[in-house]
C-alpha cells in the first residue's frame, strides 16, 4: 500500500510537468502563429478594437442589422443560454414580445417570414451569426434608415454570407458584426 502511495505521488508530479506545463505552453507558443496570436482575433475600426471576430455583440439601433436575442446581453465574460424549456408559458410570452418588436420596427414584415433564430436566444448568448432569412427581413429597415437602395444592402448581405463548409456541410449564415462594419464603411 505504502509503495502505491509513493508511486502515485511521484507519477502525479511527473505528469503535471508533462501535461500542465510542457503541453499547454507548447500549444500556446504554436498558436502565436494563428490569427489573433492565440488570444482571439480582434476586429479594429480606425485603429480601435471594436470587437472580436468570433463574438457577437449587441445591435439595437435601426440602422444596423440586429443579431439574435441573448440571455446574457452579449456579456463575453459570462456566457450562457436562457435554459428556458419549450413549454414554459413565460418564455413563450417573451418570444411573442420579440415577434411584436420585429413587426413594429420592420413595417411590411409578415409574421410567417420571421425565422426562429431571430426570436430565440442562442446557446452561448454570444452567437455572432444570424440566418440568411434573418438578414433578409431587415434589409428594408436598414436601407431606409441609411438612405440606401434596398439592392445595395442586399448585395452587401450576399457578400457577407458564409456558405456551408466546402459548399457541402452545415448551414449558411451571416456574420452580423462584419456586415454592420461593411455598412459603416460605405
Amino acid at each position, binding site marked *: 500500500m505504502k509503495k502505491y502511495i509513493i508511486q502515485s505521488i511521484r507519477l502525479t508530479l511527473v505528469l503535471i510537468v508533462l501535461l500542465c506545463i510542457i503541453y499547454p505552453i507548447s*500549444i500556446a507558443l504554436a498558436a502565436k502563429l494563428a490569427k489573433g496570436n492565440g488570444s482571439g482575433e480582434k476586429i479594429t475600426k480606425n485603429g480601435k478594437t471594436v470587437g472580436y471576430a468570433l463574438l457577437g455583440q449587441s445591435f439595437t439601433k435601426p440602422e444596423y442589422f440586429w443579431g439574435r436575442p441573448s440571455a446574457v446581453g452579449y*456579456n463575453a465574460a459570462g456566457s450562457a443560454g436562457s435554459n*428556458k424549456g*419549450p*413549454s414554459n408559458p413565460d418564455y413563450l410570452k417573451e418570444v411573442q414580445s420579440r415577434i411584436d418588436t420585429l413587426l413594429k420596427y420592420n413595417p411590411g414584415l409578415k409574421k410567417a417570414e420571421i425565422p426562429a433564430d431571430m426570436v430565440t436566444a442562442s446557446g452561448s448568448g454570444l452567437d455572432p451569426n444570424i440566418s440568411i432569412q434573418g438578414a433578409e427581413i431587415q434589409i428594408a429597415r436598414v436601407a431606409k434608415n441609411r438612405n440606401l437602395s434596398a439592392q445595395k444592402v442586399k448585395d452587401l448581405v450576399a457578400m457577407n454570407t458564409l456558405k456551408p463548409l466546402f459548399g457541402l456541410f452545415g448551414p449558411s449564415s451571416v456574420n452580423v458584426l462584419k456586415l454592420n462594419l461593411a455598412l459603416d464603411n460605405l
Partner: protein
Amino acid sequence: MNTELIGIIATFLLTLIIAFPLGKYLAKVFAGEKVWTDFLKPLEKGIYKLSGINVKEQMNWKEQLKALLTINILWLVYGFFVLIFQNKLPLNPDGNPGMTADLAFNTIISFVANCNLQHYSGESGVSYLTQQFVLMFLQFVSAATGIAAAVVLFKAFRDKTTTQLGNFWEFFVKSITRLLLPLSIVIALILSFNGTPASYDAKDQFISVQGDTVNVSRGPAAQMIAIKHLGTNGGGYFGANSAHPFENPGYLTNMVEMIAQVIIPIAMVIAFGYFIRRRKLGWTIFGVMTIGLFMLMIPTLSAELGGNPAIAKLGISQATGAMEGKEVRFGPAATAYWSTLTTVISTGSVNGMHDSTMPLTGLWQLLAMMINGFYGGCGVGILNYFIYLIIAVFISGLMVGRTPEFLGHKVEAREIKIAAIITLLSPFLILAGTAISSYVFTNYGDAGWAVQPKNWLSNPGFHGFSEMLYEVTSSNANNGSGFEGLGDNNIFWNVLTGIIIFLGRFLPIIGPVAIAGLLGAKKFIPESAGTLKTDTKTFALMTFAVILVLNALSYFPALALGPLAEYFTMLK
C-alpha cells in the same frame, strides 16, 4: 438532401474511418506489440524511472484496483485544496475567488470521476492555474484511468487461465503517451488555428460598435477543449461550453469536436475484439451499440428538426428546426446529433442547451445516460457493457438450463451477485436522488441555502421535474451535462451529486474488473456443442433485449413524470 444532414452523415463516416484503425492500434499498444509510436518508449521509460515504477511487476485484479484507487484518492485531496485556495495561488489574472468547501467537494469529485458536472462557471469561478493544473490535468488522467481499467479486463480474457493481469501503471501511462496526449496536440492545434484562444492573456475590454463596454474572458482554452472531448470529459473552459464561439468557432471545429469525443469509445470496443483474439465479438458489440445509437439519434433529429410546436402556434417560420439555445453556425441537425452523442458516451459537453430542447429530445438524452453503455465513456463504456453481457449470459443460461459461461469461464453465483449489485446501483442512485430532491423542493422551499429550493427550477411543471431528474441521472452516468436552468450551486446539490458521482464512478469500475479477475482465474473450458456463443446475432439480440428491459423497467415511471408528461401536455 440539405447540407445540414449531409454534414452529420459525413461526420459519422469520418468517425468510423478514424476509429477502426485506432482500435487495432490500441490492441497492439496494450499487448506490447510493435507499433509506429514506439519512438515514445524513451519518454515512458523516463516517466517510470522518475516515478519509481517497475512495469515488469505483474498485478492481480485486487492489486490493480488498489493502485487505481490510491492515485485517484491522491488527486481528490490535491485538487480539493487547490480549488479552495485558488485565490491565493498564482496564475489568477482575473482575480477570481476561492471556492466554497461544498462547491470544491463537488467539483473535484466531478473531475476525478471523468464526469465534469460543473456547478461553477469557467469565466468567473476558476483561475488559470485551476483550469490547467487541476481540471485539465484530471481530464487526462481520469480518461487514462478508465482506459487502463478496461485494459485490465481485456487482459483477463486474453489467455486461457490467468491471475497475472499486467501492470496498471503501464496501461495508465501508455493511455496518455500513446493516445491522449498526441491526439490532444493535433486537436488543440486545429482549434487554435481556427480561432480558439490558447494564450495566457487575461481578460480584455473593448468598446463595441454601438458604444457598449464589453469584457471578454480568454485564456488557454484550446488545450483543454482538445482533451475534454478525447477523454469524454466534457467540462468546458467557458460557461456555455462548446456553444461558446471561442470553444467551437465554426462548423469545421464542430465536426472535429464531434469526432474527437467518440473515436476512443468506439476504438476500445474494436480493440477488445482484437486484444482477446475474438474479433467477431468486438464487431458484434459494436453492432449492438451502433443500432442503439441510431435508435436514440433518429427520433432526436426528428424532434429537433420539426421545431417547437408551441412556437409554431405563434405563427413564425421554423424552416430549419428549433433554435432556442442553439447556435446558427451549427444549425439544429448538428446540435441534435451532438446531443445524442454526448449523452450516449458520457462526454457531457454541449454545443446547444439541453434544457431548451424538445421534450422528446430530453427523453432520449435521459435514456441514453441511463443505459450508459452504447459506446460509453473512455474505457468505462466497455466496462458498463460488460455487465450487461454478464447479465445476458446468465439469463440465457437459465433459459436453456445450462451453467452460464463467458469466453470459456463458468459464470457462478459470486460474479452474478456483483453484476446484479452494479446493475441495481444506477436505478437506486437515480431514483432515490430524484426522490430526495423532489421531497426537499416540495417541503423545504424556504431552506436558507445559497439558492433556496423554491427557486431551484427555472421552468415550471413537468419540465422542472425533468431538470432535477436530469441532474441526478447525469451525475450517476458521470456524464456532466445538465438542464442548466437548475440552480445547482448550493450545499444540497453539491453534496448530493458529489456522492452520486463518486459511487456512480468507482463501483462500476470495481465491479467489472473484479468479475473479470475472478473469471480469468477459473479453469478454461474449451468450446463444445453446448457452449453459448457470445458473438452471434442471436446473442446480440439477447443483450439488446436485456438492456431495453432492464432500463425500461427501472426508469419508465420517472420518465413518464418528466419529459413524457410535458410532451403530451404540449400536444393539446
